């Protein structure tokens, strides 16, 4: 309980709430689009860089297990999500795989929030976690988009969508950052440390202020999407999170690492996935997939979800 309240009182989560409040009060506050894009670029590159530097200090042995289960989860979670949507929720194939693509992918901000959360509790998760983000970003989207392909009902361009995902800015920045950090190593990284590490949490505050405003605009769609998707957006992340914790602990991740993995796996992308889905499945309804991943799962995860994953991980980790 305490760990939950502690999460609510973090500047980052409070900034998210401020963003929601600003929109509900109809304030004219606006984060200029280029600033927002600049913050995204900065945050993704920073995650990559830090991850790369850490990776350069990690032995392959410690990394191989977590890497394997991350890929496994990248394949499993969209299938689970698809099955639930299609057979439990009786959604059509197109919309089911569109939503599944989102839950197969990962929200970088949720990842960052999870890292910050466990660090604020005094833990330090494994250094290669950002590498796992990059590993998780792509396969889930692909798996989900293949489904309608099989029955030839995608109607968009799968190949173009694939290119979009693989060369999308999030992957370029994450992977590019990883490589730069890995090649540069800890010593050469020092000169850019103040910019990319010390400034990180503060930049995140501004970013979540904007994300709060974006989410608030989504809230009015909640009614449209119905109670099934609301439940889906909360329960499926928990399901995926528990799966991630279980597998994570099994391959030797620390409690903190398993918590962060759970947050990653449970989260749904709202940058890479929407663009890919828009191209591959243009007929899918954005109200469904954006509202689920951005309007429901994202706020759930960064406020209540992450502390829950932590509690479960502590409990399972004994």
């Amino acid at each position, binding site marked *: 309980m305490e760990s939950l309240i502690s999460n609510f009182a973090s500047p980052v989560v409070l900034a998210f709430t401020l963003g929601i409040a600003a929109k509900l009060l109809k304030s004219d506050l606006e984060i200029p*689009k280029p600033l927002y894009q600049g913050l995204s670029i900065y945050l993704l590159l920073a995650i990559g860089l830090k991850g790369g530097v850490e990776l350069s200090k990690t032995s392959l042995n410690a990394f191989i297990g977590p890497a394997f289960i991350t890929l496994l989860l990248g394949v499993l979670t969209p299938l689970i999500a698809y099955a639930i949507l299609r057979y439990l929720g009786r959604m059509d194939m197109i919309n089911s795989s569109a939503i599944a693509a989102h839950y197969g992918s990962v929200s970088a901000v949720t990842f960052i929030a999870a890292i910050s959360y466990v660090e604020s509790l005094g833990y330090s998760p494994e250094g290669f976690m950002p590498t796992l983000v990059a590993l998780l970003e792509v396969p889930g989207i692909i798996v989900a988009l293949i489904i309608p392909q099989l029955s030839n009902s995608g109607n968009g361009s799968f190949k173009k969508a694939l290119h979009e995902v693989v060369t999308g800015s999030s992957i370029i920045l994450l992977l590019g950052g990883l490589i730069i950090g890995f090649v540069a190593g800890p010593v050469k990284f020092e000169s850019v440390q103040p910019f990319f590490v010390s400034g990180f949490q503060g930049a995140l505050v501004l970013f979540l202020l904007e994300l709060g405003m*974006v989410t608030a605009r989504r809230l009015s769609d909640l009614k449209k999407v119905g109670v099934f998707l609301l439940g889906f957006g909360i329960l499926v992340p928990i399901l995926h999170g528990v799966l991630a914790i279980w597998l994570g602990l099994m391959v030797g991740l620390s409690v903190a690492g398993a918590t962060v993995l759970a947050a990653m796996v449970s989260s749904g992308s709202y940058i890479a996935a929407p663009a890919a*889905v*828009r*191209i591959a499945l*243009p007929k899918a309804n*954005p*109200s469904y997939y*954006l509202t689920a991943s951005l309007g429901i799962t994202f706020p759930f995860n960064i406020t209540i979800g992450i502390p829950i994953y932590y509690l479960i991980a502590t409990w399972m980790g004994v």
Partner: protein
Amino acid sequence: MELRELTLVTIITERLLRDEIIDRLKETGVSGYTLSDATGEGSRGIRASDWEGKNVKIEVIVNHSTAEKIIQQISDEYFENYAVVAYTQAVRVVRGEKYMS
């Protein structure tokens, strides 16, 4: 200064389609195009680019028959699934022969 009567085709669409539509225009043989940022609302409500928050406005000056071709192509390929608005206007262009591709 002789002005030549040509057609200005304006296409307002999702940011996502920008590069693809420009490639299409180039294939059609336009001599140039102008892009600007825009936002807006239309019949589709939210869409993926809602996240990016941006539409793009593509303006291209062409002769009448190329305009027809462009409009036809845009209609065929994008109108069903994407947010696209397209319209034409008559304009009188300086050095109009440049655009008679």
